């Protein structure tokens, strides 16, 4: 990408440069002025991130030790009561389990399918450009719209899924009554919507790989599987690490699909993930202090996972 932008540029710009002043003076002047200008350029963004990302992150920890209704001006300090409630309640265990299952399935499912699709659509097949666009399209659509639409797609009496299953003589599972099937349903919907992302990342990685290696492997008469494992897969490692971090962060945060499809139900918390629990405790049950506790726990989990991934990635790069 960078190369084609740059290619024509030097001839157009370089001749216009006038005689240069002594380098040292320019350097000094650049430094003094640089600080002022850098501040002017950066401050608005830094203030916004500070006030609306980092301030609430810290404030959240304070709030997690309180009993607080979000519309009340005062919050009562109650120590670790919220934490002991969260860690001991069986509802929280269900929520944690839902989060783990949903996230793991979303990460593994969308990455495996995205890679398979990328391998398929990297081949020279008629119509592949149209199919590439089609696969990516759901990713740009609002999650809330997908959730609303797929509530009807999975409708037990008039939906698409029950109709298709009926044609092969299978009764549709109770997607809106059975918590396991409900979780399955939102996971499938999430993967359907977000598959385009893992697909384009893997496709770009495949297109950027070194064809000579593939050819060499081919001359060695390696089988397709061996060639993939020994030649292609190692070249996809940076893309895989990148996806692991971003897809995990994104799927951990899913809210719109769950809110529009199941409201966290059935049976109270059948599809409630941690993010949904934060929302529900804070804004539906009016227990903002407890919501902040769940949010803090969630952040700690994300922090540990991300740090671990960065460690692993750094180790991978050193080798």
């Amino acid at each position, binding site marked *: 990408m960078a190369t084609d*932008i*740059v290619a024509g*540029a*030097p001839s157009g*710009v*370089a001749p216009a*440069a006038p005689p240069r002043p002594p380098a040292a003076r320019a350097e000094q002047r*650049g430094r003094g002025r*640089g600080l002022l*200008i850098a501040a002017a*350029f*950066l401050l608005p*963004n*830094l203030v*916004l991130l500070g006030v609306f990302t*980092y301030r*609430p*992150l810290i404030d959240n920890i304070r709030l997690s030790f309180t009993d607080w209704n979000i519309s009340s001006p005062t919050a009562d300090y109650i120590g670790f009561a919220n934490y002991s409630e969260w860690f001991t309640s069986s509802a929280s265990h269900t929520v944690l389990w839902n989060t783990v299952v949903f996230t793991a399935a979303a990460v593994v499912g969308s990455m495996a399918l995205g890679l398979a699709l990328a391998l*398929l*659509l990297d*081949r020279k*097949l008629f119509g*592949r450009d149209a199919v590439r666009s*089609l696969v990516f399209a*759901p990713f*740009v659509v*609002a*999650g809330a*719209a997908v959730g*609303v*639409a797929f509530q*009807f*797609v999975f*409708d037990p009496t*008039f939906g*698409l899924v029950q109709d298709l299953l009926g044609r092969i003589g299978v009764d549709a599972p109770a997607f809106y009554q059975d918590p396991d099937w409900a979780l399955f349903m939102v996971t499938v919907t999430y993967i*359907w919507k977000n598959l385009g992302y893992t697909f*384009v*990342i893997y496709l*770009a990685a495949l*297109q950027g*790989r070194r*064809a000579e290696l593939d*050819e060499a492997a081919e*001359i060695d*008469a390696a089988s397709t599987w061996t060639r993939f494992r020994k030649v292609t897969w190692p070249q996809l*490692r*940076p*893309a895989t690490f*990148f996806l692991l971090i971003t897809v995990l*962060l994104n799927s951990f945060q899913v*809210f*719109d699909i769950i809110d529009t499809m199941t409201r966290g139900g059935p049976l109270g918390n059948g599809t409630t993930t941690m*993010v949904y629990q*934060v*929302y529900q405790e804070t804004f539906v049950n009016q227990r903002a202090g407890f919501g*902040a506790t769940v*949010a803090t726990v*969630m952040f700690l989990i994300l922090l540990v996972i991300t740090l671990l991934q960065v460690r692993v990635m750094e180790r991978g*790069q050193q080798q």
Partner: protein
Amino acid sequence: MTTTQTTTDRTGPRHSARAATATTTAPPAARTGPLSRLGGYAGLLLVVLLVAVPLYWILISSLKERPDIYSVPVGWIPDPLTFDNYSAVGSGVAFTDYLRNSIIITSALTVIQVVLGVLSAFALAFLRFPGRSLVLLFIIASLMVPNQITMISNYALVANLGWRNTFTGIIVPLAGVAFGTFLMRNHFLSLPKEIIEAAEMDAAGPLRMLWRVVLPMSWPTLIAFTLITIVNEWNQYLWPLLMADDARVAPLPVGLAQLQDTQGLTNWGPVLAGTVLTMLPILLIFLALQRHMIKGLTAGAVKG
């Protein structure tokens, strides 16, 4: 692979010829056997069915009359075809208001984020000042903090400021930009050093340098950044849901969920029409400019 013995001696010349002409990676020759091609097209067909059928079904259902939506088995062609659901969307909820709000929120956030992102990236890439790497870390690390964690405290703050049910309340807390800053900075750093240094020696002011030298070499990345921002902001759901009680400032996804609340289950027609109307603008933008958007999304990922 059964064809390898016969292809080995032929692959050499064929591949080098292809490598010279084609820009994409040449697929291994062994895969182009008829059986493998057939498998490829079977896969293609499966993908099309899995992605397109739900979309098609939502579209045709929105064009059906009410009794046809609630009939078993499902009909694959709307007969008779009607646009009644689309006119009913507007009578169910204030759909045009939601559309207007979506346009206002998305345009404002896109302009603000692109300007702030470009300025921040320029400072991080070209200006020398103490603590630059810390500032970069401050910006990138914020990518790791989801809105869902900050929303409680932000809600309280914005409510205290009296910003609920205002565009300010929706826009300002979402206006900080981390991903775009990172994307633009990486691109700026990839620009040829000689040109940047020449411009610096030229003692052009930073704004002039940005406008005259840096941006003209950055349009593809800038367009990608803009598109990604438009898509993200158009699809915002949780924060506007918390900020807006009604159609005065709520954007389309929130309006759609409200439509689903009032009409869903009993009257799917208008809800599905609303869904199609919510998806359509962004799909059209995407179809026109997808190459640019994909470039931006893949920029950071592949180099590792």
